[in-house]
């Protein structure tokens, strides 16, 4: 712990508990280590610039950063970028939401009711193992070719890791603590809420770290298959019209979305798992 942090903790003591945690999180977010990544990114940018200007690779393989930046400004100005972003974001978040509900419920019941493990797992793996491309037509017939099909694809790609993480988390709950809850006559909902959920939180949040990135990929994959908007569409069209600037832009923004969602989960984790940092 740095001396600054200790000093900060002193200030903390004067604040109310809720505020304190609020501050602590902001403090952790403003950690100097967070500036390492931007600096490395800048280094990578310089390298990109240098390589692009050296002419080592043709423009259509490695576009000049300025070209991408120009394309960004252009698409930002005419609002199309925002539109693509919104569509993809909506698809992936909706997919994530559906996947989360399904995965958490399934994960919980499978972890708790042993026999379901034997009954359900084969079919769930079947669902997981089918390549999306192979069932895309069926999805389109069922839910229609519009945004719904992409949401379904995003959810399909997302749910499994979250479910497995939930199972691991719930199974990891200490039997001693379970017994303690039972001795205190907790009903199943209370056991879930006061014991299982907080205890499985590290695993579930890990599952969400995987899930958020997958939901974005899922949305993009859905857009690859069929669409007329969204970042996946931007990439597909960019590739088909030999416009690497669009492809780069699409990939960069996709990454930015994934990273943002990941960071959101990481911040939630910082808050929910603060007890893990206690006493060390």
């Amino acid at each position, binding site marked *: 712990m740095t001396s600054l942090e200790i000093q900060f903790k002193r200030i903390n003591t004067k604040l109310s508990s809720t505020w304190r945690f609020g501050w602590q999180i902001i403090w952790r977010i403003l950690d100097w280590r967070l500036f390492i990544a931007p600096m490395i990114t800048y280094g990578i940018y310089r390298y990109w610039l240098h390589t692009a200007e050296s002419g080592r690779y043709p423009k259509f393989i490695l576009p000049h950063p300025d070209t991408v930046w120009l394309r960004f400004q252009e698409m930002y100005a005419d609002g199309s970028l925002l539109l693509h972003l919104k569509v993809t974001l909506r698809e992936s978040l909706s997919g994530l939401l559906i996947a989360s509900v399904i995965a958490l419920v399934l994960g919980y019941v499978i972890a708790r009711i042993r026999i379901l493990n034997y009954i359900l797992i084969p079919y769930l793996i079947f669902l997981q193992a089918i390549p999306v491309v192979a069932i895309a037509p069926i999805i389109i017939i069922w839910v229609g070719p519009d945004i719904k099909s992409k949401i379904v694809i995003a959810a399909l790609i997302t749910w499994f890791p979250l479910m497995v993480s939930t199972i691991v988390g719930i199974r990891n709950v200490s039997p001693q603590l379970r017994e303690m809850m039972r*001795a*205190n006559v*907790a009903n199943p909902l*209370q056991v879930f809420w*006061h*014991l299982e959920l*907080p205890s499985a939180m590290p695993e579930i949040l890990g599952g969400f770290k995987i899930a958020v990135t997958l939901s974005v990929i899922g949305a993009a994959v859905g857009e690859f298959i069929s669409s007329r908007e969204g970042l996946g569409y931007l990439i597909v069209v960019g590739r088909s019209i030999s416009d690497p600037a669009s492809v780069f832009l699409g990939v960069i923004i996709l990454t930015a979305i994934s990273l943002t969602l990941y960071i959101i989960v990481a911040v939630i984790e910082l808050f929910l798992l603060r007890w*893990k940092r206690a006493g060390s």
Partner: protein
Amino acid sequence: MSQFVLAVENVSHTYTTTDGQVVKALHEVTLCLSPKTFTCLVGASGSGKTTLLRIMAGLIRPKSGQVLLNGKPLRQPQRRISLVFQRDTLLPWRTVRQNVALPLQLAGVDRKKRFMQADQLLDLMGLSEFANAFPTELSGGMIQRVNIARGLITQPDILLLDEPFGALDALTREQLWRELLLIWGRTHATVLMVTHDIREAIFLSQRVMVMSTRPGHIVKEVEVPFDYPRHFDLLTDPIFIQKEAQVREAILADRLSSSRLG
């Protein structure tokens, strides 16, 4: 407040370990906790005391025999029965106050009220300063005191304590004896306490039961004739010392009959 009788009838229990060994933990144990009594249970390590308490709390079903609460078979944990665990069973993501308030929260008591009661008990346990600390920030003895506070907060009719004072220094321990007797006097709960300290057992209880080594069964019951409130002078009372010797002998006799300790 109505009166509760918890009776254990011919209870036997075995565990099967992963390597296939069958451990006989309890063998035909019979005992009855009359209302408003204070009983202590002493016995060698591994003799089945914790197992018996878990059975009496409704946490495990004995392999044979039964537990009766007011004549009705006890099938699952009851809110009126409170068990203070031997091992650390605090929730690590809850602060001390939240941990102590847990049983009230589960019973649906609102936040303000349960925190108030928790704070009172923490004060009693000398832990007011640590109400907002997490369990990992406590010393061994402090954890045990939080454990006790959590067991007391529901003001149970039947209180089962599993070595509550094991990790406490002599003075804290004696102070908590007093507090426990005061609470018991006020609420007249039925108390069954497991302890390794024979003096503690005699000082606190009306009856000391001695459990034999594996398979555990009750080999001796010693009545303690002193009135409450009790004072520390008692510890040097000849009758006290005689009772102590009695209990000691009972344990020793059992130990000698089995070849080795454990």
